[in-house]
Each structure stands twice: as C-alpha cells, then as structure tokens.
C-alpha cells in the first residue's frame, strides 16, 4: 500500500493511469443491471472538474484507491438517480429528516431514495451562485440557509428526475428545509408531509412520542405502497434493516478509527462523505456497503500500522457539516485533523431493532435525532465526542440564516468553554465572497496557532 498522503486533482489524474483497467471496469453501481455501460464510477476528480465542479481543483484528496472509490461513488450519485429511473426504478425524494425514514423507503423493491437537501453543497462544489440565485428569484434569499439550493434545483429540473413521491419531514426539524418544501409545492411538487414531534429530553413521555411517530411511519408506508404498487413486506423490511444496521456499524467503526492515536489515517472531507452515506446510501445500498467496507479495511490497516498524514497533530471535533469542504482542507493544512463530528445526523446512528414491530423500531431510532430535541441534547453529543476523542478543540461551522445555528451555537460554545475546551465558531461563506472567506481562513490560522501554543505549554 502506498504511504498515505493528500494529493491534488492533477496528481490523481496521473496516478489514475496506474489503476488497473480491470478495476475501472469492475467497480460499478447497480450490479443487478450487469449490462449497464454507464454504471462504472471509479474515476478521478479531474473527470468531475471538466463537468463544472470547480472546487475540486482546489481540494486535497486521499491518495488511496478506497478513497477514490468513495469520491467516485459520491460524485456519481446525481447521474445514478437518473439511471435508476431509466432502469424503471421508483425515485423517492426525501427531505428534512436526514436519514431516518430511508430504511423504510429502501425496504420496497426496485426503489431509490435521495435527499434534495444535500444539493446544498452543489453551489460550493461548482463555485457557483446559480442555484442560490434561482432560489432567490423564487423568494428564498440569504435569510434562508444553504438548503435553499435544493429549491433552485427543483425549479431547474436538471439535478434529479421527477420523483415518484416526495417525503417532507416537518415539525421539530430544520424549518429552512420546511420552507423549501412549501416553495417546492408551489412549483407543483406533490409532497407527503411527515410530522416530527418535539422531544423535550427531560421528562418526556417517550411512549406517546413513539406512538405518534409510529403512526407517521404507517401513513408513509401506505403512501409508498401507492407510489410503488407494492405491498409492504416485514421480511423485506428486516432484510433491508440488517443491511442498514451493518452500514451504521461500519460508519461507527470508521469514525472510531479516524481518532487513531498515531497519525491521522484519513482526510476530513472523505470522512464527512463517508458519514453522510448513512442518509440515503448514495442511491445504492448494496454498493455503498461495499464502498464503506473497503474504506474501513484501509482505515483499519492504517490505524493498526500507525500510518497516516504527517504534521496533523491538532485533534478537533467538527460541529455542523460545512457546506464548503475547502474549510476542512484548510484546517488540515494548518496542522489539524478531525477526530470527531456532530453533523446533525445522530438519527442515522442507532442500530434498528429487527425483533420489534417495524414501525416501532423505526420510531425508536428516530427519537435519537439531533434536531428534534433540546439544544442541551446536542450539547451533550458534542461534549461526548470531545471527551471520547481527547480533542484539543472544536470547530463549529454555522450557516447564516439557518435557524438551529444561532440558537444552538451559543449554548454549545458556552458548555465547551465551561469545560476549558477551546472553540472556534464562524458562519460558512457563500461562494464568491472572497473577502469574507479570507477572514475565516485568518481566524482558522489564529485558532490553530493558539491550540499549538496551548499544547506546547501543556507538554511543558
């Protein structure tokens, strides 16, 4: 195996020549469609650069084949959803729940789910304001968070095929996404609303909450039956959930490995991509498992043999996913490594109980969600990560206009400071605002310098 390094897209373009043809040929999605010439996805970042993903020219990538495969799988998701429809599969758009309802969706045969919400990073990847401007023309300006890009995508009709069903989670979740849903409905999109109750995290009556959620799942199940023309099968559900559980275990294991005591075994952007696989499995559950298994094996090898990137010694927990992945690269260049994360997707972490009634099991797992409860719940998730990973500091990347950011960032900062944990908090800047971006870089530099000085002092 080659020595772990972070390389740029030029280096990957050349390195790709050495990837055996056999592998390029073999690594495919939708393996149940063996004749599909379009299903290969092991390609270097330069391929995606040519198609307008301009940020890739600036990013650093891990130099392993496993990471390349993960990148290829992530970057091909958009095309994959179109191919799914071309192959006769049903396409379900899921919004606002971030990974909670997809196990149910995937338990139906010949189906694929995707999150329009995740298009929030498209403007950053393309370094483009197109989708934001489109959303702006429809009434969603900068007072709404970056998920407004998905409204732009609904309007343009060029980022995903027309869904057979849209499932929109509303209630105790991201209200920016709920705004996107209602605007999308104005565009003629038919949405099945899934209501999420608020969780008090104190003396909440869990049974009542769970019962409410079970009803929501039953209603959704009926809508999925209508959309697919298939009957819900508990056996197929259990089979799907077993795979989902395997994925959740893999992700947890990989996250643990990222905190290896020696060098950092993987880049923060790859880790974020890996973690977000839990949402909709990038449109192919089986292949996603294969991608993550290879990724886990590599991480295990690196962690066990002490291999990793040089000169990244500051252990950091990252809170709230940054829509702009360049920020993660930047902190790595400054000597940071991300050993833990709280990306608002805690609902994708519980192992779903296959022995229970399906809807009860889903509801129980859903109740662990990050967004539906108190700020204190999220504060505890962050502190637990910091303590478990022995982090030197925390970075919180907020989103201007996002409701949970201003309300939750302050209590998280306060709780961390009370425990003596240094924290840097900023709002991610939309593409094209270079001066604001440079200000963030400046603050990251100062933060890393102060963490290094602190570490040195502590080491005596």
């Amino acid at each position, binding site marked *: 195996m080659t020595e772990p390094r972070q390389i740029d897209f030029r280096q990957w*373009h050349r390195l790709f020549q050495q990837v055996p043809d056999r592998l390029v040929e073999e690594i495919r999605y939708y393996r149940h469609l063996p004749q599909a010439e*379009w299903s290969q996805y092991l390609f270097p970042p*330069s391929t995606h*650069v040519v198609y*307008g993903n*301009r940020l890739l020219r600036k990013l650093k990538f891990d130099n392993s084949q496993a990471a390349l495969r993960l990148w290829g799988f992530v970057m091909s998701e958009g095309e994959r959803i179109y191919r799914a429809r071309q192959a006769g599969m049903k396409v379900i758009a899921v919004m606002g729940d971030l990974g909670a309802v997809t196990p149910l969706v995937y338990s139906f045969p010949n189906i694929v789910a995707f999150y329009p919400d995740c298009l929030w990073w498209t403007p950053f990847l*393309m370094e483009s304001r197109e989708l934001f401007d489109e959303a702006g023309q429809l009434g969603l300006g900068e007072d709404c968070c970056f998920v407004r890009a998905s409204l732009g995508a609904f309007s343009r009709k*060029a980022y995903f095929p027309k869904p057979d069903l849209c499932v929109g989670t509303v209630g105790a979740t991201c209200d920016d996404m709920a705004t996107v849903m209602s605007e999308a409905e104005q565009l003629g999109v038919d949405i099945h609303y899934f209501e999420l109750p608020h969780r008090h995290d104190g003396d909440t009556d869990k049974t009542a909450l769970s019962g409410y959620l079970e009803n929501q799942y039953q209603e959704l199940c009926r809508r999925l039956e209508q959309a697919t023309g298939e009957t819900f099968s508990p056996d197929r559900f259990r089979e799907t959930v077993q795979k989902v559980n395997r994925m959740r275990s893999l992700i947890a294991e990989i996250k643990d490995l990222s905190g290896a005591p020696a060098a950092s075994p993987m880049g923060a952007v790859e880790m974020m991509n890996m973690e977000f696989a839990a949402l909709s499995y990038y449109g192919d559950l089986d292949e996603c498992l294969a991608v993550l298994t290879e990724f886990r094996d590599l991480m295990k090898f690196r962690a066990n043999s002490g291999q990793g990137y040089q000169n990244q010694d500051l252990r950091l927990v990252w809170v709230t996913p940054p829509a702009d992945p360049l920020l993660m690269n930047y902190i790595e260049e400054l000597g940071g490594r991300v050993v833990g994360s709280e990306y608002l997707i805690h609902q994708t972490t519980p192992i779903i109980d296959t022995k229970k009634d399906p809807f009860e099991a889903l509801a129980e797992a859903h109740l662990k969600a990050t967004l539906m409860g108190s700020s204190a719940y999220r504060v505890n998730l962050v502190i637990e990560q910091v303590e478990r990973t022995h982090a030197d500091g925390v970075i919180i990347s907020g989103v201007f206009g996002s409701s949970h950011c201003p309300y939750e960032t302050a209590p998280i900062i306060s709780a961390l400071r009370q425990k003596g944990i240094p924290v840097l908090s900023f709002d991610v800047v939309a593409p094209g605002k270079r001066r604001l971006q440079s200000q963030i870089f400046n603050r990251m530099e100062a933060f890393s310098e102060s963490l290094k000085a602190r570490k040195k002092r502590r080491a005596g």
Partner: protein
Amino acid sequence: MPGKMNPRERWSLLLIDELPDRPPVYPLVTCHAARVYNCDLIEYCTDGRILAEAQLEAQRLYGHEGLSVFTDVGIIAEAMGSKYHLREFEVPILDSPLITDTAMIGELGPPDPTTQGRLPVYLEAIDRMYSAAGDVLPIFAFIPCPFTTAAGLRGVDNFLMDTVLEPQAAHDLLDVSLKSAITFCDECILAGALPMLVDPLASGSVISRTTYSHFAKSYQQKLIAHLHRYDLDVTLHICGDTSNMLDLIPQTGADLFSFDLADVDSATDAMGDRVRLVGNLPPHGLLPSSNLSVTQGTNSIMEMGLKNPKGFVLSTGCEVPIRCEAQKLHTLINIGKNARYEEVW
C-alpha cells in the same frame, strides 16, 4: 426567469441520456470570436488571455451554449516542430512540415503542452474561461486527431502518399501523433475543458473510406478509449463529406458526432440509437453573400435532429466563418432556443 436551465445543465442532461428542455445550441464559434472582439487573428492565436476574452465576448453577444478553444488544426504539429504561417485575417496555415524524410519519425516525441509551441495559449485560455464561466458553460478544447496532426508534420500530400507507399512510416507517425494528442488532452482536461476531437483531414472529401478505416479510425478509437477511461463524453468532429463513412463512426466510440456534409436523417439512421448528433447548418450560409435561408435550413435541421433518439445539438457543420453575418448567426441560435422537447416533468 426562474425555471430556465443554463447551458451546463442542458448539456449534462443530454450526456446522461435525459432529454433537456431543448437541444443545446452550440454553433462552432471559433476564430469568428476574434472579429467580435475586434482583434486580429495573430493576437487571437498567440495570446491565451485574448482568446479567452474574445470567446467570452462572442458568447455574451450570441448566447450560444459552449465555449470553443480552437485556433487551427496544426496546433500539435507546430508544437512538435512544423512551421505555421500566422496571418492577421485568416487562420494559420502550414508553412513547412517538420518531417521531410520518414527516417526522421523515430526522433519525434510528444511535446510538452505547458511550454511548446502555442499549446500553452490553449491552456491559459481554458483556465481563464473556466474560472470566468465554467459553472454555467462547458468549455470544449478542439484537439486535432492523430491523422490530421500527422498530415501537419509531414505535409498533407506527402502523408497521403505515405499511406500508400510507406504505410509503416505513416503508422509510426500516427503513433507519435496519438501520444501527443493524449498528452495535450490530459493538460486540457486539467485546465477544465472537455476535449473535442477534430479530424478534418479524415474527411470523405479528402480520403477514401478504406484509408479512413486503416489510418484514421483506429487512432480516433485509441484516443477516445483513453478519454473514456476517464469517463469523458467525447465529440468527434469531421469536416466535409462524411456520408460514405457514417456507419463507421460508432466504431470509433464517439459519444457525439459533429458533422458537416451529410443529412441528419442519414446520420440518425446510421447511428442515432448510439450517438448524439451535432450539426449541421452549412457554415457558408452564415456569410453575408450567401443566399441560403438560415431560417429554412435551421428549421429543417432542427426538425430532423429532434427525432434523433440519443439526442441532438444544434450547430454549424463546421466553424462559423470569420466573416459571418451576426444577424444570421442570431437567427440560427434563436430558432434553436425556441425548440422544445416534450416536457418530462
């Protein structure tokens, strides 16, 4: 206006076998951009900044849906050592070919695109265009195929004679031309452009079907295979009359075929289920002196093109003439932009 796709989105859908709202409209606006920008062709062909700015200016004027990085078909041959004559008001032409004796072929190697000849002009132009508009406009780098480059290295007449009298030497020259094209393609990709392969000398107007099969096609295939390994969608452009070789085009592996003197229906019959078609208003029709009705010609092409199962791009059959009448080009583009596929949403 909300809901209107941009060119990048339209092309992206086409390339994954989805019908966009309408076919992309991409006339081959190359050196005509210099006229729009009011610079001479020597400046345009030797300065990447000027080439980029002229292309962007022309795109702003006409609103066509792709940027074209192209000066002349000798760009690789020149970087390898052939001499080209640069002219103020016309495109460069071959002055003196490098290979005067086939024994010299063994000494040839691919040029360094970052330093040799005018290849860096392309790279600078691509980089500038990509930074300026790469999110909404695809950028096509026109790369001469090995057959055309070989002719530029040896001289057209001599090279065509070699294919008969010294076929091995011709293949040796084609091999090194292929390596050069691959090297240049890679750099253009890294700068942000999608290679568009051009092979004007491989036209049915110049060579026979047999010569095309033996000396041009297999090198087009190899170049396309290299690009396919990177999952890139490749346009092959052949000038002039290609009607006698339409059935051979799919064998090259091209994803899109840009053609000149062949009718769209014939091209559809020959390859429409596998290859997207790009064409093909006769460029001379855009000259002020032409009596061809651009409206009638474009409508007829569009009507046929919309039926191509694999998709269609409205274009010109070859480069838009330098002295193109702006209004005529506007007419072509407007007709294209008013066409519609049946809405799928």
